[in-house]
């Protein structure tokens, strides 16, 4: 396994939104899915997950509902709302443009200045 990268600030929200966009999940499930799609390269602090979830819910990007888990226990499931979907799109675009800019700056050769 490659060295685990530290999660950049502010990106946890984006990742949660993405994870949930693929289908409703409970908190633990979201954690697993992020780890899964990142191929275990991201380390997520378990303690910071739930505050982020609550914040996202408060802001209206995700909505929650109590349901039954795979092993028949009560769990709170989160799904993406329409507004959340738009937000995810916007954040993704933002991220990509930012990445381009930074990459451009970092790739400048001395003679291009």
């Amino acid at each position, binding site marked *: 396994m490659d060295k685990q990268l530290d999660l950049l600030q502010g990106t946890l929200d984006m990742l949660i939104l993405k994870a949930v966009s693929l289908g409703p999940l409970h*908190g*633990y499930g979201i954690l697993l899915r992020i780890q899964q799609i990142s191929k275990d390269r991201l380390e997520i602090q378990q*303690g910071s997950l739930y505050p982020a979830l609550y914040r996202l819910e408060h802001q209206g990007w995700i909505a929650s509902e109590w349901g039954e888990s795979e092993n028949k226990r009560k769990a709170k499931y989160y799904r993406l709302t329409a507004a959340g979907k738009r937000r995810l799109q916007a954040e993704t675009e933002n991220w990509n443009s930012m990445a381009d800019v930074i990459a451009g700056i970092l790739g400048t050769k001395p003679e291009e200045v």
Partner: protein
Amino acid sequence: MDAELRFHIESYAEDLVRTGVSRQEAIRRARIEFGGLDRAKEECREVRGLNLVDTLIQDLRYAMRMLRKSPGVTLIAVLTTALGIAANVTVFSLVDGLFLRSVPAKNPERIVRILAPENDGGGYFSIPEFLYLRNQTKTVEELTAHYSTAPLYISANGETGEVQGAVVSSSYFSMLGLQPYLGRFFTSEEDSTPDRDAVAVLGYGFWQRVYRGDSNILGKPFLINGQSFTIIGIMPPEFHGTEIGGMPNEIWIPAMMIHVGYRHCDGFQPSCTMLGILGRLRSGISASEARAEIATLLQQLRASNSAFDERYGASVIAAIGISGDREYFLLLMRLLTTIGGLLLLIVCANLGGLLLARGTARGTEIAMRLALGAGRSRIVRQLLTESLLLAFAGGAVGLLLSTWMSQLLVSFYSVDDEGYRHLFDVRPDATVILYSIVVTAAAGVLFGLLPALQASRTDLNDALKGGGGTVGASRKLSRTALATVQVAFSLALLVGAGLLARSAARIESGANMDLHHVLGLRLPVSLLHYPPHRAYTFKQEVVRRLRELPGIESVSLAKGQGLVWMPGQRARATLTGKTYTKPEEEPLISVKPVAPDYFGTLRIPFVSGRDFNDSDKLGSPPVTIVNETFARQITASHLPLGQTVLVDDKPYQIVGLVKDAQMRSAIQGPLPVAYVPFWQDETLLEARMCIRVAGDPAAALPMVRKAIASIDPEVPVTETMLLMDQVHGAYTDARVAGGVLSCAALLALTLSAMGLYGVVSYEVGRRTKEIGLRMALGAGPRDVVQLFLRQGFGVVLIGVIFGGALAFATTRLLGAWLFGVGSADPLSFGAAAAVLLAVTLTAAYLPTRRATRVDPMVALRYE
């Protein structure tokens, strides 16, 4: 939240177990990896934001801490708010007590008053009319008749005196849902036959006062107007009758005993109308249905017997508010409402300015909180909580103050100008308390919102760099605007106070009367069924006897519905020989029978001719003394002596001319008056006496009473009052309005001065560096002062202009109380403006003196 987090940990633990870890170990590791459960919960809570109640409590605690930090400012703010709210709530208490209270009864919602105007406007009923209605009506139940202003001269337990009684039908008690405190009320059997059942119910206060609460008085007799009545019960305490704002009743007797309580005509005649009628609307019936039915019934009654008065419709209205003349109070209420509103606005402007200043001072604190992530709305909410806390503290104090203030205001009306006591209940009830809460909250938001919004816009960079931050242009403009508003409103109040003060001074001047040292009283001989001749000689004897008493300068009599010094009855008059095509064109005058020495007693100056004397008696040629307006209007000459005039078609010869003697009224111009000799008319039963006393008239009263009693001890001496007190009573409104306006103006002026002082003072403090710079560059103290004074002067000038306009628009409200002074009187405006300028400019100047003492070196270093 708990369940969700637990599920997470357990799921994680399960996964660990699946990889081979023992269950116990798995749970342990899961917990550790997750981190502190409580901390997670805490963070979640914080992110979600505390719910509303928790936020509120947090805000309140913070607000209290902030307010405690500057106790001086807080105290002033609370007091200021208290005064503003007190003024407002007081006015509302009065409005509530006068116009919104229902008759004191159980379930008063369906109780209505029934009125039916007759020829002269009245609206009262006679007993036969009442009985007919009671038998026939299907829309109103428990119809009750009452005459609640019966003057009953009683003799009980060794005491004598006049009390206000009520003559009521037997359903009175059940309609109101009253329970006797002791004994019982009269039954319908006892109220069925005229003049038979002399039973009486006493008021609680009367019972305590006269019988010392002796519980053995049931069945005992006492005298009312010379007739023996039996006490059968005691009213519950706190019940004083059905008339709101009326005279408190102390004795209740059955309607069938009307002859005892009402003397002006025979109460059982169809046209002798004096009763008010109350009743309960039947459920399902509306007031207009009842009205139609009553009107129809009255028409039928009149059609069957023309002895009944002609009626013009009927009205059925909810029994709420004063039953008497509303117009009388409405005017004053309107003025008081305006004053209360203006004062509250001034208070809000003042506090707004104060809070704006504080917001600036707290710039650092607010900037820090903004930087730490608080949302702007959160800051605004917290600051608003502070304002509301201030407001409610002030509101509570204000409510307490208002109970005292409303009692004070009402006490001016507690005795009317005939000496009768009135009862007004202005204690705060649920409506008043609700109103005060609403007003307090509104005030808190009004003066707190703007500063809160402004404070939350603190520029982070400036504030955090220290120095409290610079004040944005908008904030300075706000404070200046608020100061200007205060100045403007203060001017309006000052002008009003000035107008009323001038008016008060002119009430007595030009009246051509001097009523000081004059005692007035009334001898209602008709209460004792005196025949006219006996009344005549009795009164003559009284006048003769009183004249001989030591200290009595002069004694006289006058007849009049009004007071001794007021104009008399209306009549028509013409010069003999002059004819009018239509009788309505004949001029209306006032006729007043007066005894000799009337003019001397009241110090009304003669212009020419003579006073009435002993030769003007029964059988002598009818003569009259007229006033100047009469001479001018009727005889069209200045020398009317010797001419004969017809008053109501009776000829009188003019033997004297006096000056117009009339207290000023804003509504009425001078009236033409013809005085006729009292002793030339034997049918006059009632009379009011006026007695001029060398010293204090009140001290002479016992002597006068004894003298009258020595002639006939049965005759009650009533309505004893100093004429000057009557005059004051007649102008109570003007006096109350003047007093209130003066207090309000004083408060407003103080607040405006404080507000302006604060604005300028702050500017000086803020621009200390600039001052230092200027002084270092050669500016003298006067230049510095001028710099700031210009701003203060600007505020005052604009304030005066707007205030003047406002005053111009609103002083029309004072119209009824301005005597000989126009509502745009330039002298009052000028004086008010002068006072305002003096006070406010001083307030603006004082802080500038601080500016001149700035040491340039210190100032320039001041950071």
